[in-house]
């Protein structure tokens, strides 16, 4: 309890570098809007998607998956002791999605038409699903983050209102979403009824409510994220530009599994790195147990990834001498390294081993997603695609913007819980919540 829950702000060399990158990126973005995509990218008619789709969108969305996995772990699966990690994860996810939308506007040729996605529905297009998932999940993340803002402003009544209204907003949003995705009245009514039933059970006291977060909000986050993470894989099912090591009908499942796999790794990575940067004590008593899930997640992913190659009979493709093949081996090697680290309790108990394993996991995911979006693409008529330097700088600039926004947010919002005393890991968050919910809330 020695520190206030917000983190002070001073200009450090690190922040200065981020500022420079952000300004450079924004400058190049202005140039792109003045002279077209061709002026800053190596994209072509054969390779219409490249570095931005791979890094900003496929990788970015996966790395923002910590929000839904942790929220689910804490509020659905009863892992209350991890509560201290959820707010940073949700903030990361929210900022990640905002950045992703910004990056998408840079990549889209005609971003001013984006509102057509709201009213011009193509139910069979995976891109339509992606667009709607992004919109609705960003909205859900906003609702999940709102308590931090309301606490900061000490708007007690708005906070109470949020508790009552958020579940209703979620029911409305998912009802519209289901209808847009399925074009089926039956499914729409079914999903609305399921959600309304849970809310009724909670309002009548048959089922216990969650004291911090409406359960429907968490459920909506998981439902939308599950669809969203997998639909990024679905996007590539229709293209025949991908090599056999990267194209598989299992892409949606692989994308979902890898997003769940990278979520705890990203939370660990962020927890350790942000602790170092912000001079806080890392939440090791929470991060180490989180790491115990990783051997299973990594192994599950590896089994599906390799099993799929065996099943499709293309395993000999891994013996070719091409960049795409080396990239595949890099991905598998990173998964194996991460697996080896997380399977050794002695290594994981220390911050350094934990950081190494988490980094390997994140890199493995980056390798797979860039493999699908960049390296694995092969259009013989058009040679090879290599990203142009402004593409890389723009992405770096957008990431820098995100880090600056995160830094600003933790300077002004109560994102981190007060530092834990050693040995009180399980109890401290509870005490904080009890304090926050000291005023009894009457609902329904």
């Amino acid at each position, binding site marked *: 309890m020695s520190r206030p829950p917000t983190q002070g702000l001073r200009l450090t060399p690190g922040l200065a570098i981020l500022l420079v990158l952000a300004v450079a990126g924004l400058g190049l973005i202005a140039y792109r809007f*003045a*002279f*077209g*995509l*061709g002026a800053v990218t190596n*994209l072509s*008619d*054969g390779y*219409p998607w490249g570095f931005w789709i791979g890094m900003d969108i496929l990788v970015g969305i996966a790395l923002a998956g910590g929000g839904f996995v942790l929220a689910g772990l804490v*509020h*659905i*699966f*009863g892992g209350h002791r991890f509560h201290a990690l959820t707010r940073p994860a949700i903030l990361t996810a929210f900022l990640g999605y905002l950045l992703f939308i910004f990056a998408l506007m840079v990549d*889209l*040729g*005609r971003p001013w*038409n*984006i509102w*057509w*996605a709201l009213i*011009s529905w*193509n*139910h*069979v*297009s*995976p*891109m339509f*699903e*992606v*667009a709607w998932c992004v919109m609705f999940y960003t909205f859900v993340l906003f609702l999940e983050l709102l308590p931090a803002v309301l606490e900061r402003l000490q708007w007690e009544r708005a906070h109470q209102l949020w508790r009552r209204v958020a579940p209703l907003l979620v029911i409305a949003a*998912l009802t519209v*979403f*289901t209808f847009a*995705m*399925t074009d*089926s009245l039956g*499914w729409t009514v*079914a*999903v609305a009824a*399921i959600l309304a039933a849970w809310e009724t059970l909670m309002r009548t*006291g048959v*089922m*216990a*409510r969650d004291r911090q977060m409406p*359960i429907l909000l*968490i459920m909506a986050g*998981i*439902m939308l994220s599950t*669809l969203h993470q*997998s*639909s990024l*894989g*679905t*996007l590539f*099912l*229709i*293209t025949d530009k991908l090599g056999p090591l990267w194209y598989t*009908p299992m892409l949606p499942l692989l994308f979902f599994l890898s997003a769940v796999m990278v979520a705890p790794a990203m939370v660990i990575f962020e927890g350790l790195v942000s602790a170092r940067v912000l001079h806080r004590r890392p939440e090791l008593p929470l991060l180490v147990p989180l790491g115990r899930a990783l051997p299973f997640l990594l192994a599950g992913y590896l089994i599906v990834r390799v099993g799929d190659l065996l099943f499709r009979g293309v395993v000999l493709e891994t013996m070719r001498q091409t960049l795409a093949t080396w990239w595949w081996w890099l991905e598998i090697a990173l998964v194996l390294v991460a697996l080896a680290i997380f399977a050794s309790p002695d290594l994981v108990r220390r911050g350094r081993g934990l950081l190494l394993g988490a980094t390997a996991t994140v890199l493995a995911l980056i390798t797979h997603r860039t493999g699908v979006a960049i390296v694995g693409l092969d259009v013989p008529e*058009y040679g090879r695609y290599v990203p142009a330097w402004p593409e890389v700088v723009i992405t770096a600039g957008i990431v820098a913007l995100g880090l600056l926004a995160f830094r600003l947010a933790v300077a002004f919002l109560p994102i981190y819980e007060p530092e834990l005393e050693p040995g009180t890991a399980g109890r401290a968050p509870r005490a904080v919540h009890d304090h926050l919910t000291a005023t009894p809330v*009457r609902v329904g």
Partner: protein
Amino acid sequence: MSALSRRRFLERGGRAAVGLAGAGASAAVALAEDAVADTGADRLVEQAAAQWAMLFDSTLCVGCRACELACNTDNELGRTPDEIFEGRPAEDARALAPSVFTYVTFHQVEADPSTAAFGKVQCMHCIEPACVSSCPVLALHKTAEGPVVWDGTRCLGCRYCMMACPFLVPRFDWDSRNPRITKCDMCFDLQGQGKPPACVAACPSKALRAGTRADLLAEAHRRIETRPRRYVHHVYGEHEAGGTNFLHLAARPFDELGYRRNLPMRSYREYTKPAMATIPYVLGGLGVALGALRWIINRRADVAAGGHEESQP
């Protein structure tokens, strides 16, 4: 004691959740596959029979490229005749551009170096187009008459159509701040006035014909039947990518003429259909499973912690 039992409980809950998710996913996939087994693809092919279509007979083409000039003029693509005729002959779809909707490709015949064979590259106007099924906002649209057309007021410029098209046809203005997706629209406006497409009208050797798909398909098979040694016995576009409204005949195997080979005989939409069909099952399944899991896990944790009730008003 509570910490220990909670952990054990968490593990059990986690295992149950993984099992449930697995079972749910496989059930969803099974149901989805049932749902898409009847694809309606046959119905689309039937509808296409009466739609506008084009036939290109490579054996009649003399490579004069009058069709390119007519296309350029009629669509006001802004190229001069010099630019069209002085350009080097291309071999494949790379020659398409925002200002080039069609292109005659030139191929030396290896068996007989003194002769050349020609192919024609342009939008194939698929029966169930990959570009149309991928477009998030219906900016690309398969008209009831047959042509696939683009509506610029809706297009986001996401270029998913370009990723999806197996014929590498849609083009993008890479150097424009207001880029369009461009491709042949089978002269939708001209045909609406009862006239043939510009390239068909311009062709001096009758290598190009316009008509309904059923008529042209019958004509193509009749030509192969009456002169079996003149043609490879294949109508390109009859089944490729689920069938197209633009049909091709040739004397040489089509891949020698720059046509993409090894295309699937079903539409590209079929590849995303099963995954898209799982959406409602995922929504409904997770909606039930997550609520139930949360209820059970929370209740058991409370009981384990000493029967403490959280649900009092």
